């Protein structure tokens, strides 16, 4: 593959080790692995409903072009490719790209991973049926400008799934104090609570960007079952939304 031939063997060994780290369910990215089935359930249900696909078939997302913004090691890109989507994984962190690429190759998955941003892809005129915008918006400097770029990336009738963290005292307690300071699930300073966005603020921003919000759900961690689930009512910490670009 041309993608990996330009880097030397030591680099490949390093990236392979990093890929193993990304994909170790008990490793550094454990919180993401725990959250992943719940995020995927939401994403799959929304795509299936919007594009009228049957999830019990072998490749329900065949024919859909999908962009995963902030793809990291490919935790969402790989499942989407396995379900038949034509996937572009984009990450602003350059070192994530060869890591994700090496892992996908090992899995026999063909995913187009690129070191780029939503803004640059939009400027290049790329368009998609689905844009995954998961746990990114709370990290960007100018959310309205970023969401406008996301809208430009969507084809008319296209679907964007966007998840983030609510700005509540509970999200401060769980997301910052709990996850970063006590559990050490995330490196300290991963999140800046002041940048968290309430669901109403996000809906306003989505509308401002010319998108039509159609659904929102909470993602709730249950410490007894030690697992995540979707909730219609509790959006107080993590939540996920679906919006459409009007046709």
């Amino acid at each position, binding site marked *: 593959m041309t993608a990996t031939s330009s880097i030397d063997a030591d680099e490949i060994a390093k990236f392979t080790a990093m890929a193993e780290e990304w994909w170790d369910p008990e490793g550094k990215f454990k919180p993401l692995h725990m959250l992943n089935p719940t995020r*995927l359930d939401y994403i799959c249900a929304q795509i299936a409903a919007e594009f009228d696909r049957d999830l019990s078939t*072998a*490749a329900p997302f065949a024919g859909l072009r999908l962009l995963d913004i902030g793809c990291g090691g490919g935790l969402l890109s790989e*499942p989407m490719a396995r379900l038949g989507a034509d*996937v572009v994984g984009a990450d602003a962190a350059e070192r994530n790209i060869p890591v994700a690429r090496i892992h996908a190759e090992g899995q026999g*998955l063909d995913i187009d991973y690129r070191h780029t941003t939503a803004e640059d892809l939009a400027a290049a005129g790329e368009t998609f049926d689905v844009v995954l915008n998961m746990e990114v918006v709370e990290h960007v400097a100018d959310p309205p400008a970023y969401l406008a770029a996301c809208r430009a990336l969507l084809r008319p009738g296209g679907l964007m799934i966007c998840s983030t963290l609510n700005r509540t005292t509970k999200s401060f307690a769980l997301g910052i104090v709990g996850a970063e300071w006590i559990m050490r699930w995330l490196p300290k300073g991963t999140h800046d609570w002041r940048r968290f966005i309430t669901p109403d603020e996000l809906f306003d921003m989505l509308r401002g960007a010319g998108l039509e919000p159609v659904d929102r759900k909470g993602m709730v961690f249950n410490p007894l079952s030690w697992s995540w689930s979707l909730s219609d009512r509790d959006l107080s910490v993590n939540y996920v939304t679906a919006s459409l670009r009007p046709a």
Partner: protein
Amino acid sequence: MDNAGPPGIVRAMDHDALIAGGGLNGTALALALASGGLRVGLVDPLAASVRSGAGFDGRSYALSLGSVNLLRALGIWFELEGDAQPILAIRVSDGHAGQGASPLALAFDHAEIEEGPMGHMVEDRHLRPALLRAVERAGIALYDRRAAVAHAADPTGIRATLDDGTEVRARLLVGCDGKRSPTAVRAGIGRMTWGYGQTGMVAAISHGRPHEGTAHQFFMPEGPLAILPLTGNRSSIVWTERADRAEAVAALDDAAYLETLRPRFGDFLGDIALAGSRFSYPLGLSLAHRMAGDRVALVGDAAHAVHPIAGQGLNAGLKDVGALAEVLVEARRRGEDIGRADVLERYQRWRRWDVATLALATDGFNRLFSNDNPFLRLARDAGLAMINAWPEARRGFIREAAGLTGDRPRLLAGRPL
């Protein structure tokens, strides 16, 4: 199968899941996974014709309602229903050979639960061929007359080697290969085993009077005798004896065997005769340390072989089948790699507690009743009488035995995946 596939997927796998062992659990799992859209391979050392061609040999199973629901959801219950005997009542009593049952008996009646009969007796000669026919209809790849002799796991899947040299690639290998599971051994999963020094002797008996759909469990000091109703004037018995005495009984000819059985069986069903072959199984408990390993999952006896005292062995296996199929089908539908450790952990977490409790409860039950200490006898007679007098406890007991409690897999509620 279409090998070109969609653009994002490179097809390097022969199957999503490869199942080692074509017994009852292995075939049921193959059907359950195929019903959820997974591509399944089934490796079985026996030829399909050998498995399905068996005549009546006396072996039969007490299927819980949950198991019947699963078979219904897999579309094979309609073939079995006509030959199945509903269990309408269960009577548990404490007795001494030759003295009949203790008057303080425990009785359960299906009228106490709304779901109907507490379970069904199904003969092996009907169940096994029905499962194999369904496997054939579902187009599942069958590697028969072959065994998996080696497997290696890597980050993408397993490569299994069969004894004729065939190599098969899959995301996941499932060991449905019994209590000495070679799959578990190769995966480095150890097990704990206890022997009871007891042997279960199984046979089909015909009798003069109808059983009215009632199952009996007589607890004797030597071990329990279970009498389970089959269709017509026939019953299946599980007669448990100390290993040395069982050996002596096994050596008897049929006439002498019946003479030894009569005082234990009693005459409440009229005169008795043998209606099939006699089988003996040494009793023990064998629990794998884990139900999952590196791209390997264990199902049924490979994970937990229990004392067959309450007829829960196959039922527990089919519960594994329902849980594993649900976990894997859900994982595949959200695009996950079904052989990954975190997916298999969901299965293990779902079943482990249930299996450990069942094993310990069955063990405790057997130890309590296989005892001739007069104080224990008094205590358990009083205990049985109490359960009998307390409808709530009795309903709980029936529902547990019928497989209607706990966090049930969808298939065990009769719902498709």
